């Protein structure tokens, strides 16, 4: 059954008429994902890549019974798109948009706590349940169905590890890119909890990086609650402190959020930590 999305997940694409939205809609459909509709105010009634377009998420949900949305609208409109999806009762909202102002996400994050909606992202590659559903931009070609769950703060580093696992003959249950922003809709701990409870996931890989304390919280959770084996890689050992490394959240502030501190916490919790992401399949064998 994997986590978050499977072949029964019915998806609307917000921002389907844009260049990115259109391109990735095609990719998602080709992968076999159930894309049931798209949204673009003012373009309701049109069709994009064989998918009906609606003016609002509410209309799309009423007509298609969609229960998930993926957002490709540009960063300035991302928060509004998330509010709209939540207001329409969409349960899973995956926001690919980047960059999204932190202040917008703070408001979204606190608002969503009072709703039934879950947000993944923003500024993330989305999620992929191999062979069933691709909600976002993770390239489907490199993945294969299996029992390794992946939770990651980054995009291409995730693709690397998926690819390495596939080449080692190890498939994946679900790959979740939570995003590298300081505030994200779904935390690493929440995804770990889902993997722990998912019968199809038998092993877990964490791909973290410098900044914040998500990995330290993850270590704490693993120590207390996880029975499944976990391997991890933490990027940014060589990054200078006080400097943002691409991702808005990837910064060591006031000596906190270093790779060393995260690695130590994970190792203490029994996690096998790789010095090189290519070691991950070997650590999970």
């Amino acid at each position, binding site marked *: 059954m994997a986590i978050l999305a499977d072949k029964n997940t019915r998806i609307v694409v917000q921002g389907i008429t844009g260049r990115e939205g259109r*391109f990735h809609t095609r*990719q998602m459909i080709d992968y076999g994902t159930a894309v049931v509709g798209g949204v673009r105010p003012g373009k309701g009634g049109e069709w994009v890549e064989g998918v009906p377009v609606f003016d609002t998420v509410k209309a799309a949900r009423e007509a298609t019974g969609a229960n998930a949305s993926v957002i490709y609208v540009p*960063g*300035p409109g991302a928060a509004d798109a998330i509010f709209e999806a939540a207001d329409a009762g969409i349960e899973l909202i995956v926001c690919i948009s980047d*960059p*999204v*102002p*932190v*202040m917008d996400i*703070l*408001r979204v*994050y*606190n*608002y969503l706590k009072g709703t039934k909606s879950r947000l993944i992202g923003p500024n993330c590659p989305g999620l992929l349940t191999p062979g069933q559903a691709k909600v976002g*931009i*993770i*390239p489907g*070609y*490199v993945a294969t169905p299996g029992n390794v769950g992946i939770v*990651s*703060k*980054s*995009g*291409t*580093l*995730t*693709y*690397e590890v998926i*690819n390495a696992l596939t080449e080692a003959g190890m498939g994946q249950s679900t790959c979740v890119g939570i995003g*590298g922003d*300081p*505030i994200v809709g779904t935390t690493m701990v929440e995804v770990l909890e889902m993997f722990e409870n998912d019968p199809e996931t038998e092993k877990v890989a964490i*791909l973290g*990086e410098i900044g*914040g*304390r*998500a990995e330290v*919280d993850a270590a704490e959770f693993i120590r207390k609650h996880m029975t499944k084996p976990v391997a991890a*890689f933490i*990027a*940014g*050992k*060589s*990054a*200078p402190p006080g*400097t*943002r*490394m*691409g*991702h*808005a*959240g*990837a910064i060591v502030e*006031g000596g*906190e959020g270093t*790779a060393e501190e995260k690695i130590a916490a994970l190792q203490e919790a029994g996690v096998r930590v790789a*010095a*090189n*992401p*290519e070691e991950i399949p070997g650590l999970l064998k």
Partner: protein
Amino acid sequence: MNLHEYQSKTRFAEFGIPTPKGKVASTPDEVFAIAQELGGPVVVKSQVLAGGRGKAGGIKLAKTPEEARDLAAGILNELRIKGLVVRKVLVDPATPPQSEIYLGITNDRTTGKPLLMASSEGGVEIEEVNRTNPQAIIREHIDPALGLHDFQTKNVASAINLPREHWDAFSKIALNLWRCYVANDATLAEINPLAVIEGNQLLALDGKMIIDDNALYRHPDLAAMRDVEAEPTSERMAREAGISYVQLNGQIGCMVNGAGLAMTTMDMIKLYGGDEYGPANFLDVGGGAQAEKVATALRIILSEPNVKSILINIFGGITRGDEVARGMIQAYNEVKPQVPIVIRLQGTNAKEGREIIDTASIPNLFGAATLTEAAQKAVAAAKGELK
């Protein structure tokens, strides 16, 4: 984006926070004129985006305008603080504090809420207080939809043992700091110290703001405040090209798609380069890796004279490895770099991509299959050992 002290204090003043009536200057004569206008002793403060200005001799007290001018002459374009040349100084009236407190707002990643922080130990870096006396820091979470409540500011004032006579002024400053924080899309707004001065007034003697880069598009006025003179040329070039780049001090240039993978590539170089060879930069070339963008990225990397070799690491996801390889060769022919380059392609059609690179048989261009092999080859190339 970090704002200078004078820029931060100007913002604070716009939001009704009391600040010293100082002005910024870039020549000793300007310093003299400002000091004369202010009358009385002044403090000359270096405006660089680095901490520890006082210890580095960048903050000086002057009794007369003449002394201020002479001190400024020794600082302006002369003094370097953590490698940064001082090009501007702030001239503030010298106001000896009777007591100092810390007041700041930032975002708490764990709770997903903004956080008001205060401490009676002002004038010291908050990280330092957190290490030595963490109980001294009082925290109040702010609901971003509701904003900071007046009672929360009173909670804080009482917890830091601020004398009651200052509570009203303190609340007003805290509420205004929150308004300033929101209106400017800040990720940090800090008054340190907030001083009690003669006449029982509260005054923001020093200020610091960090603006969310993701929100700069809606603050053109703030974006224009960027100190481009303090930026290395390579970083300016990258920013203008929309490439995420950070200059470091190693010898091996890196070009990678994706921030996480870019950091990982740097780490691999450090792992195999040891103490002598490290990454020269962080560079995320973004998705697609089209020829034009690759060429620009190559030029940026090569603008740093200490670069001895370059490692290009591209994961072809939706963009296929063969397209990336053709783009690489086109960019290579355009820029004609004189240093050896190691290219690693992984992902979709990576094998076809590697074949294209191999058959092109360009001298000084080497292929690699794994991240480990690529990092080892890039280090060997920097040492001049790769043939």
